[in-house]
């Protein structure tokens, strides 16, 4: 195929929105069409280096280790830490979404927020106490919980403060790890909380319980009993192995779709109580101050959101041509029903392909084919969930929450539950930045 035939082929693919977005069906069912039409480089080929055997093809490799680690060439695929020396304050570790693909977050890269480091818990000494408004207070050991019928579900966890940098007055120039790195997704396995509540004989009139960790600050939150009876779990496994220590080993509470902080790690106590306990983390923190001076409290589900991870700020495009735009979407209110992508700053939109299976309250990857013509572009993604909630524009969000007064450090949480549409500018040079539209 000559270069001119190659270009004609690319142009023959169906355009579905401005600035070169290509019908998602080419990703779903016409892979050969892409290969044929867009091809891979010029068929004539410049003089290439002769193919040679590299050293690893000429000698035996390395002993397979008992526990495998990523390639030594992937050393940049790590979490960023806000408190690497464990000074007397909280710590956050953010997921490098710009370096990952798929939807499941490896355990060592799952985001963490901890108030006082993570506790080094001996599972044989750990106990879970359930008491309060129950017929019989009980202790559950780890060994005991491992005997219960288990259930698994894939679900995202997201800090209430994730994406808060997008509330800053001016666009903060940072990558998606800094902007959106406090969301991750794993397959969690454990025991339904309702099973244990039935065993201890929860007061049928009780409406609230509190969950508390075994960490140094004994982090605790109030949670509606209705959530316990719906889909709450006490989980012991994360992506098939026992929970990572920084994510709650030996057990954590899992409240699918709810604000991350409520999914109490290192869970050691559940007390069924008369009403919300008014913990520091549900009065001082995790409340949203509105322009009126009043603050929202008990804002539980993480609302519908998406962002484009490829390409994203900090990356540089490798010249005009075919790209797969891809990113992550999720909703604490159920499944993602659609994600739309724009390459012209929101003037026109096209439906992205959703990677199946699309699971409720789980990260869902979307993909969009794009032929970048090398001119400036603005990439957006807009998710809608099965309840009909649509991810808001920044302007819509600010109309309700109020105008930002400052651009705080990227690690600050100036506005929790921020789910505005992300906008990535692509310059003619191919540089990708965070912009507001």
């Amino acid at each position, binding site marked *: 195929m000559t270069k001119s035939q190659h270009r004609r082929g690319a142009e023959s693919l169906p355009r579905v929105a401005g600035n070169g977005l290509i019908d998602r069906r080419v990703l779903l069912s016409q892979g050969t069409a892409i290969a044929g039409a867009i091809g891979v480089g010029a068929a004539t080929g410049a003089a290439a280096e002769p193919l040679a055997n590299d050293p690893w093809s000429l000698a035996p490799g390395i002993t397979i280790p008992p526990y495998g680690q990523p390639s030594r060439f992937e050393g940049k695929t790590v979490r960023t830490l806000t408190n690497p020396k464990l*000074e*007397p*304050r909280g710590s956050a570790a953010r997921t490098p979404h710009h370096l990952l693909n798929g939807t499941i977050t490896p355990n060592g890269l799952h985001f963490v927020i901890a*108030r*006082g480091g993570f506790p080094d818990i001996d599972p044989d000494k750990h106990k879970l*106490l*359930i*008491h309060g408004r129950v017929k*019989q*207070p*009980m*202790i*559950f*050991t780890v060994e*005991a*919980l491992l*005997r*219960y*019928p288990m259930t698994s579900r894939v679900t995202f966890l997201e800090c209430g403060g994730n994406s808060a940098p997008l509330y800053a007055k001016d666009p903060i120039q940072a990558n998606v790890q800094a902007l959106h790195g406090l969301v991750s997704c794993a397959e969690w396995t454990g025991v339904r909380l309702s*099973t*244990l509540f039935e*065993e*201890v004989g929860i007061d049928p009139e009780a409406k609230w319980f*509190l969950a*508390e960790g075994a960490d*140094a*600050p*004994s*982090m*605790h939150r109030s949670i*509606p009993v209705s959530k316990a009876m719906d889909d709450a779990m006490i989980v012991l496994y994360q992506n098939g192995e026992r929970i990572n220590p920084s994510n709650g080993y030996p057990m954590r509470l899992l409240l699918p779709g709810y604000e991350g902080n409520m999914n109490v790690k290192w869970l*050691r*106590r559940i*007390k069924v*109580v*008369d*009403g*919300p*306990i*008014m*913990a*520091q983390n549900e*009065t*001082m923190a995790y*409340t949203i*101050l*509105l322009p009126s*001076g*009043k*603050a*929202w*409290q*008990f*804002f*539980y*589900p993480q609302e519908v959101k998406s962002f484009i991870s490829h390409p994203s700020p900090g990356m540089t495009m490798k010249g005009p041509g075919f790209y797969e735009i891809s990113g992550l979407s999720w909703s604490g209110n159920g499944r993602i029903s659609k994600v739309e992508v724009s390459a012209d700053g929101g003037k026109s939109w096209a439906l992205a392909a959703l990677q199946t299976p699309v699971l409720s309250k789980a990260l869902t990857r979307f993909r969009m084919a794009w032929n970048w013509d090398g001119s400036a572009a603005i990439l957006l993604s807009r998710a809608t969930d099965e309840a009909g909630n649509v991810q808001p524009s920044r302007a819509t969000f600010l109309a309700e929450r109020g105008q930002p*007064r*400052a651009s705080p450090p990227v690690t600050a949480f100036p506005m929790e539950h921020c789910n505005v549409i992300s906008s990535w500018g692509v310059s003619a040079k191919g540089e990708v930045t965070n912009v507001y539209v």
Partner: protein
Amino acid sequence: MSTFETRALSVCIAVAVLALRTGAAVAADAPHFGQPISAADAAAWDISVGPDGAGLPPGSGTPAQGAVVYAEKCAACHGDKGEGKPNARLVGGQITGNGPVVKTVGSYWPYATTLFDFTRRAMPWTAPKSLTDNEVYAVTAYILRLNGIIGDNDVIDAKTLPQVKMPNRDGFIPLFPGKH
């Protein structure tokens, strides 16, 4: 006893035995691996304090007593008078107006009981749960005093703490139940 009564009784016994057996079968067929613990034994871990004061222990403290504890255990992180730095500011601040929002115990926290609860469970950061209940009451009193919420001679204890009306007590709109 008539034949009818005898028969009725035996039916009752049969039903009762069946119910017992069914109950036993249900118990054995479901996992019941929790170990009963008395409410008294559970109390050792029960450190949560509700907004009505439920869970507050015996003891008391005054602002003057709290100033001593604060200087030794809290000031390094929260400033000599709660002005903050390197960590959270505890005193003053504002949440309305055109200036920056500064959430503190005085400007934002709706319940004084939360101050006791959080201090007892989580502070000081390097040695949480090391303060005595009297010390926690005293530090609570001192921080409330620094915010001008109580007087110099007020005593904070299980009875007085829940009665402290915080300035932002009515500043919150619960979204559950309701919107979510």
